[in-house]
C-alpha cells in the first residue's frame, strides 16, 4: 500500500534517475577517450601558437612521411593476409580436436599470450634466432646460407613481415576459432549424403559461411599490425620506417618549428585509414551475425 505512490513517483522520474546510472561510464570515457581523440583531431589543424592551419596536413606529403605510411600499409596488409591464412588453417585443425581437451586449452592460452604479449619479447626472440648472433643464423652459416650479410631483419618489407606474422597467427586463431566451431558436422554429413565431395562441401557450404568472418578477421588483423608499435620500437634502433615509430618520434624528440602538431596530423591519418577498415569490418560483421543467426 505504502509502496505504490513511491513506485509511481519513481516511474515518473525514471529517465533522469536511470540516466544517473551511466554517468560514471560516460564521464570516464569522455576524459580518457573522447578528450584525447578531440585533442588529436583539433590539434591536427592548429599550428604551434594555436592558430588554425592546414600546414600540418600538407606536411604529410613529405617523402619520408609518405613512405612510412606506404610501408605501414603494405606491412599490415601482407601480414594480415599471411596471418589470416595460416591462422585459419590452425583454427580448423584445432577445431577438429576434442572440445575441452588439453590441446585446445594449451593452444588457446598460448595464442592469448603470443597475440597480446608480442612487443618487446618478440623483438628479442627474433634477434636471438635470426639476428647477427642468432642460433639459426650461425647454424645456417655452416651450411653456406648467410643471413647476417644484410640488415634484412630490421627492414619493414622483409624482417618485420616475418616478426609481425608471428603475432598475427595467434590473433587469427582467437578471432576465427568461434566461426570454425560454428560449422556443424551435420552440414557435412548432409552434403555427403547428397553425393558431395570434400571440395563441394568447402566450395558450396563451409566456404560461403566462413567467408564474411574470414574477411572480417583480415581487416581486424590489418588494424592490429597497423597500430603495433612495441615490436618495431624494440627491434629498430635507428630511423623510423613506419608511421607509429614516426609519431612516437614527434613525441619524444624536438620537432621543426611550425610543425609541432605534425604528429597529430599523422595520428589523424592513421585513424582515417583504420576507420575505413573498421567500417568495412562492422558491415561484414552485421552480415555474419545475420547468416549464422547468432
Amino acid at each position, binding site marked *: 500500500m505504502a509502496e505504490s505512490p513511491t513506485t509511481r513517483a519513481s516511474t515518473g522520474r525514471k529517465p533522469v534517475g536511470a540516466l544517473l546510472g*551511466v554517468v560514471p561510464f560516460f564521464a570516464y570515457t569522455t576524459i580518457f577517450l573522447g578528450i584525447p581523440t578531440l585533442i588529436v583531431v583539433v590539434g591536427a589543424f592548429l599550428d604551434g601558437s594555436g592558430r588554425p592551419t592546414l600546414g600540418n596536413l600538407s606536411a604529410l606529403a613529405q617523402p619520408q612521411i609518405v613512405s612510412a605510411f606506404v610501408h605501414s600499409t603494405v606491412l599490415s596488409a601482407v601480414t594480415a593476409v599471411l596471418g589470416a591464412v595460416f591462422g585459419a588453417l590452425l583454427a580448423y585443425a584445432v577445431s*577438429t580436436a576434442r572440445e575441452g581437451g588439453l590441446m585446445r586449452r594449451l593452444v588457446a592460452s598460448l595464442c592469448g599470450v603470443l597475440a597480446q604479449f608480442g612487443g618487446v619479447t618478440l623483438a628479442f626472440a627474433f634477434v636471438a634466432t635470426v639476428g647477427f648472433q642468432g642460433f639459426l643464423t650461425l647454424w645456417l652459416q655452416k651450411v653456406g646460407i648467410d643471413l647476417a650479410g644484410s640488415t634484412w631483419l630490421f627492414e619493414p618489407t622483409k624482417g618485420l613481415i616475418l616478426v609481425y606474422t608471428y603475432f598475427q597467427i595467434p590473433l587469427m586463431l582467437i578471432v576465427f576459432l568461434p566461426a570454425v566451431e560454428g560449422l556443424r558436422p551435420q552440414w557435412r554429413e548432409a552434403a555427403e549424403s547428397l553425393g558431395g565431395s570434400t571440395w563441394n562441401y568447402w566450395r558450396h557450404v563451409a566456404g560461403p559461411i566462413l567467408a564474411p568472418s574470414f574477411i572480417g578477421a583480415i581487416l581486424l588483423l590489418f588494424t592490429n599490425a597497423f597500430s603495433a608499435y612495441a615490436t618495431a620500437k624494440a627491434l629498430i634502433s635507428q630511423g623510423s620506417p613506419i608511421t607509429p615509430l614516426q609519431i612516437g618520434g614527434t613525441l619524444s624528440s624536438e620537432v621543426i618549428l611550425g610543425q609541432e602538431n605534425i604528429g*597529430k596530423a599523422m595520428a589523424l591519418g592513421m585513424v582515417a585509414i583504420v576507420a575505413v577498415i573498421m567500417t568495412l569490418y562492422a558491415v561484414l560483421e552485421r552480415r555474419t551475425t545475420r547468416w549464422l543467426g547468432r
Partner: protein
Amino acid sequence: MKLRAARRRKQTIFRRVVVGLISLFFALPLLGMVEFTTRAPGGGRTLDTWATLFDLGAMDQDYPELKAGILASAGLTVLTVAIMLVMLVPTMTWVRLRLPGMRRLVEFICLLPLTIPAIVLVVGLAPVYAWVAYLLGESSLWLAFAYVVLVLPYAYRALDAGLSAIDVKTLAEAARSLGAGWPTVMWRIILPNVRTAVLSAAFLSVALVLGEFTIASLFSRDNLQVAINLLSKRDASLAIAAALAALILAFVVLLAMSFVGTGRRSQRPEEN
C-alpha cells in the same frame, strides 16, 4: 560410418601436420631465446644468466628498475581489472535493465578504441596525463586509466556475451521484489551469474596489461616491458632471459585462468 571413420583419420593427420608445422614456426624464436641465454663465453652451455636472474637479492641491488617494473605491472594489472569491472559490469547491466535505447551508443564507445591505435591515444592523452600527474602525482599506477580504455573492446565483448546468456531483467526483478537493493542485485545476483564472462574479460586484460609497452614507454613510466627493454641496453642475455620468464609466467597465469573458467561451466552444463 566408414566415411566418417576415414574422415576422422584424415582430419587427425591434417591436424597433426598443420599444428606441427605452425608450432615449429612458433617454437623456433622461443628456442632461440633459450639458446641465447645459455651461451657460455667459451662456446659451451651455462645457466649463469638464469642463476643471475633468480638471484633476487643481487638483481634487486644491480638492476633495481626491473623490480620496480615488475611491481608496477602487478599493480597496474590489478588496478586495470578492478576499474574495468567496477565500471563496465554495473553500466552494462543498468543499460540492459533501464536504458535499452542506449545499448548501441555504449557498444560504439566501447569498441571505439579498436579504431584508435594506442600510439594515437598517446598523442591525445599527453595533455590529459599532464593533469593526472598534477592532481594525483607521477606514479606509474595511473597508467591504468589509459589501459582500461585499451581493454574496453575486449572486455565489452566478453561481458556482453555473458550478459546475453542470462535473463538479466527477470533475475533483477525477482531480487528487487524480494527486497534487494541495487548493490545487492549487482554483487549477489548478476556477478555470480556472469562469472565466466568476467573471468574471460579479466583474462584478456591481464594479458594486455602485462604486455603493454607503447604508452608506458612514451610517457616515461615504469612497467615490466619498459624495464626489460631498458635492461637490454645493459645486458642483452639477461634481458632476454627476463623476457622469456615473463612470457612463461603470463602463459601459466592464462592457462590457470582457463581452467578456473571452465571448471565453473562444467558444473552447469545447461548454460552455454
